[in-house]
Every structure is written in structure tokens, then in C-alpha cells.
């Protein structure tokens, strides 16, 4: 592949990935409003389009045309930069996430991700760990006590739960022996005794999966760990002072992070794009892996929304005690046991 061809293919893939991701973000919001509405015996959005399907579009237009207020008491450069930081890192992390095998389109053989790198998992972790600056700086630069408390809570919470999150992934890395997300998925192909898929969740990493699940909720500031924006105590937390598109950027960043977390869970624990795909005409066989991947991501996102509609918020000391005194020791125990089993088998 020549340099020009490489750049062209990359640009096309970036445009497609961003388009799909932003649409997915918009419709995850719609799905959440719909599902939580039904859980609470309401209808959710119904007025704009059939089933309220055009609601995200209307919301987007509203956000763009709203007056962009800049409160007089804020620290301007960081106040403006914070939502951009949050959104940029949230969107960047999708670039190394593979959604399927290599494909050949118009004679160009290319992987189904923007960049196939051998340390993909580390890049996702690094980029998402930088996303906390957006929230923390938004809280600080707003120069308001509610925002500051929200920002402080966000940075403390994210740094605490990142440790458990990282340790829960090490078990998977030991099993796969690689940081490459593609290799990790390929190691999960096939079945045990012909019917149980060899996904990592069935290879003894089920504890790790639940640690990941809980730590991921905390990392994305979602219920039951949405302390940084707890409405009942902090007005709206770190984004109290934001309006219009700047607020929308935080909102998009949160949902983009949710999708990244769901993709990562699918790749690391739920077998990625593996699933029954040896039936139907060739075209269906080619598209099925992507379908399985999207289905698993959807199930994970649905779980997110379900939890939001079901559980109340933790108290702050409970959050910290849970992270440090329960989740972290459990993650270390899981890591040690996995390493022992792999060492004994070798």
C-alpha cells in the first residue's frame, strides 16, 4: 500500500468511524430515554418522528442554536478547553477498536478499525485515562463550589477505579499473551465441547468481568457511581456552569465513553465478533461477525441503561470503600489465581 493510498484509506475509515460513533451516541441517548421512561412507567420521547426517533436530531439542532453563555467569573481558557479535552479523548479511543476481521473492499485489504496496533489495549487505557482532565478542569475553571466538588470527586473516583479496572484486564492479557485487541479476540475463537464458546468470560475470567463492569461504571460516571454530577447534592456537578454546545460536548463524551467501554468489554470478555456465522449466503457470512459484535455492544449498553433505571446512587464514602477495600483486593486475587493456573498448565 503506497503512502497516498494509506492516507486516503485512513481518512475514509476515520470519517466512517466518527459518523457511526456519533450516530451511536445520539441513539444511545434516545434508547436511554426510552428504556428508562418505560421502566418508570412513562413513554419517553414520542413527539418528534415515529417513536421519537428524530428526537436526537432535534436535540442536536437545539444545542447548536442555543445561546452560548460564558459566566463572568470563570477561568476562561480552561473553561473553554475542558469540554474539548473531554470530547477529543472520548472520540480518539475508538480508533484502535477492531469490529471485525480483515476485509477486502475495492481491491484494498484493510482491517476493520482505523489503526491496527500491537498495544491497542494500552492505547485505549491511556487515552481514556487522559479524559479525566476534561472533567477535573471543567470543575475547577468554573469557579463555583458545586463544580469544584464535582471535579474533585470525578478525579478521585477515576484514579481510584482505574487501578481495579487495569488489574481486571491483566487476567485476560495473561490468557491471550498479547496487548493487541485483535490477538485477544482471535484467542477466543472456537468452542469447548462443541457448544460453549471459548470467550474469556467462560475461561475463568467471570470475576474479572464483573470487576471490569463495576469499575467501568465508575470510570464513566454512570449510576450508581455518578457522584461527580449528583443532582440532588451538587446541582449538576462539574458541568453546572456550562450551556449549549459546551454542555452537549460533555454529554457526548460521556456516551462515547460508554460505547468505548462496551466495545472493550465485548472484545476482552465476550469474544468480540465471534459467534455462529457459518450459515446463509456468502454476503451474510461476511456481515455476521459485525452483527455479533454490534449485538454484544448493544446488550452491554442496555445493561448500563437498565442499571441506571434500577439502582440508587452510592454515598461517597461507600464508593471509595468499595473501590479500595473490596474491588482492588478482589482484582489482585483474581490476577494471582489466573497467573497460577496459567503457570501450572504451561
Amino acid at each position, binding site marked *: 500500500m503506497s503512502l497516498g493510498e494509506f492516507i486516503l484509506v485512513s481518512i475514509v475509515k476515520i470519517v466512517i468511524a466518527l459518523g457511526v460513533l456519533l450516530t451511536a451516541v445520539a441513539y444511545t441517548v434516545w434508547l436511554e430515554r426510552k428504556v428508562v421512561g418505560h421502566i418508570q412507567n412513562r413513554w419517553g420521547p414520542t413527539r418528534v418522528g415515529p417513536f421519537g426517533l428524530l428526537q436526537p436530531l432535534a436535540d442536536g439542532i437545539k444545542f447548536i442554536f442555543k445561546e452560548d453563555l460564558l459566566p463572568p467569573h470563570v477561568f476562561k481558557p480552561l473553561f473553554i478547553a475542558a469540554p474539548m479535552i473531554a470530547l477529543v479523548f472520548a472520540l480518539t479511543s475508538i480508533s484502535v477498536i477492531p469490529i471485525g476481521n480483515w476485509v477486502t473492499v475495492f481491491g484494498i485489504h484493510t482491517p476493520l478499525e482505523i489503526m491496527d496496533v500491537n498495544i491497542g489495549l*494500552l492505547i485505549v487505557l491511556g487515552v481514556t485515562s487522559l479524559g479525566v*482532565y476534561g472533567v477535573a478542569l471543567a*470543575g*475547577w475553571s468554573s469557579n463555583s463550589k458545586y463544580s469544584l466538588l464535582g471535579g474533585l470527586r470525578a478525579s478521585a473516583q*477515576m484514579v481510584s477505579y482505574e487501578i481495579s479496572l487495569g488489574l481486571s484486564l491483566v487476567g485476560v492479557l495473561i490468557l491471550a499473551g498479547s496487548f493487541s485487541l485483535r490477538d485477544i479476540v482471535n484467542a477466543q475463537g472456537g468452542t469447548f465441547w462443541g457448544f460453549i464458546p471459548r470467550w474469556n468470560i467462560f475461561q475463568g475470567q467471570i470475576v474479572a468481568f464483573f470487576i471490569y463492569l463495576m469499575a467501568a461504571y465508575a470510570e464513566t460516571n454512570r449510576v450508581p457511581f455518578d457522584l461527580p454530577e449528583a443532582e440532588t447534592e451538587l446541582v449538576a456537578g462539574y458541568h453546572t456552569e456550562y450551556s449549549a454546545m459546551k454542555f452537549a460536548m460533555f454529554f457526548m463524551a460521556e456516551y462515547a465513553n460508554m460505547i468505548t467501554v462496551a466495545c472493550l468489554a465485548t472484545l476482552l470478555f465476550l469474544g468480540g465478533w465471534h459467534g455462529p456465522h457459518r450459515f446463509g449466503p456468502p454476503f451474510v457470512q461476511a456481515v455476521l461477525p459485525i452483527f455479533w459484535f454490534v449485538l454484544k455492544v448493544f446488550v452491554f449498553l442496555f445493561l448500563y441503561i437498565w442499571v441506571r433505571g434500577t439502582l440508587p446512587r452510592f454515598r461517597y464514602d461507600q464508593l471509595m470503600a468499595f473501590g479500595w477495600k473490596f474491588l482492588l483486593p478482589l482484582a489482585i486475587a483474581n490476577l494471582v489465581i489466573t497467573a497460577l493456573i496459567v503457570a501450572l498448565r504451561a
Partner: protein
Amino acid sequence: MLHLLVFSVFGLVCVAGAINLLVQRHPINSALSLVVVMGSLAVEYLLLGAEFVAAVQVIVYAGAIMVLFVFVIMLLNAGVENRTKGSRVAMLFGIPGVLIGSVLVAWVLLQHSGTGSVAAGALPGPPKVIGWLLFHDFLLPFEVTSVLVLIAIMGAVVLASHPADVQQSAQPDGKEG
């Protein structure tokens, strides 16, 4: 060529960030400059072929340690620092001292090491090699360092805790220390 260009650009960004760190008067701006320095260092490592070190640099330094720096600055609500003109002794001896020191270091480096450029990827960078080095070749230094870090953590805990408060709150009079 492209490689060298990107490397030089990020080298400049790194130095600019470091100078900005010193010049800025507000601690949060300095901390963010340090994040920029860490980030551009990570890119330099990546360009040299040390992808694992680059990723760890971002995750640990930029993503965790600097977040805690920013956290502390936010928590203490540190304001703009006062600037003094500096002492005359520092001006008289400091600047020439730094100049002489850097010239000496540069001279020693030029004299006593192969100064040929290192090709990208010539040094061991993959995680497997680094793991082998850490847990096999340099196991003892690695473990000793971990004990050292543990002692530092214990020291921080001792310094941060107030024994008097602990005794007070242990008394059953209902008042917290």
C-alpha cells in the same frame, strides 16, 4: 524523513512545555504544561520504537500522577504565586553554574559515548522483552525498588496521620477529632 520531522516537532513541544512550566505563574497552568511535556515525551518514546514505555508513560504519568497533582492544586485552591526578583547570589552564580554544568555534560557525552544516531526500533521495546528484563535479568533491583516505594508510602501515611486526632476520636464522647 517524516519520522525525523515528527520527532523534532515533538522535541520542540517538549522543551516549550518545560519552559512554559517555569514561566507560568498559576500552578494549574504549570501542571498542565507538565502534562504536555509527559505527552510529548511519550510520542518521542513511541518514535524510538519503545511502544510499551510510551503507553506506560501516558497511563502512569499523564493519566494518574498528574491527575493527582491537579487534584491537589484544586483541593488546596492554590492561587497565583507571588514573584520575587530573585537573590543576587542566584543571578551571579546560578546562571553561569547552569551554563558550565550543561557544557560539561554535553562535552562528556560527546567524548565518551557513541554519538551515532539510533535507528527507530533498534532498542528492545516490546512488552515481552521489557517483562523479561524486569522479572529475570534485573529481578533483584526491581524488587528492592518496590520495597523502597513501600517504605515511602508508609512514611507518607505516618506523616499524614495525626496521632493526637486518632486518640481523640477514639474517646467515646461523640465528638470527632
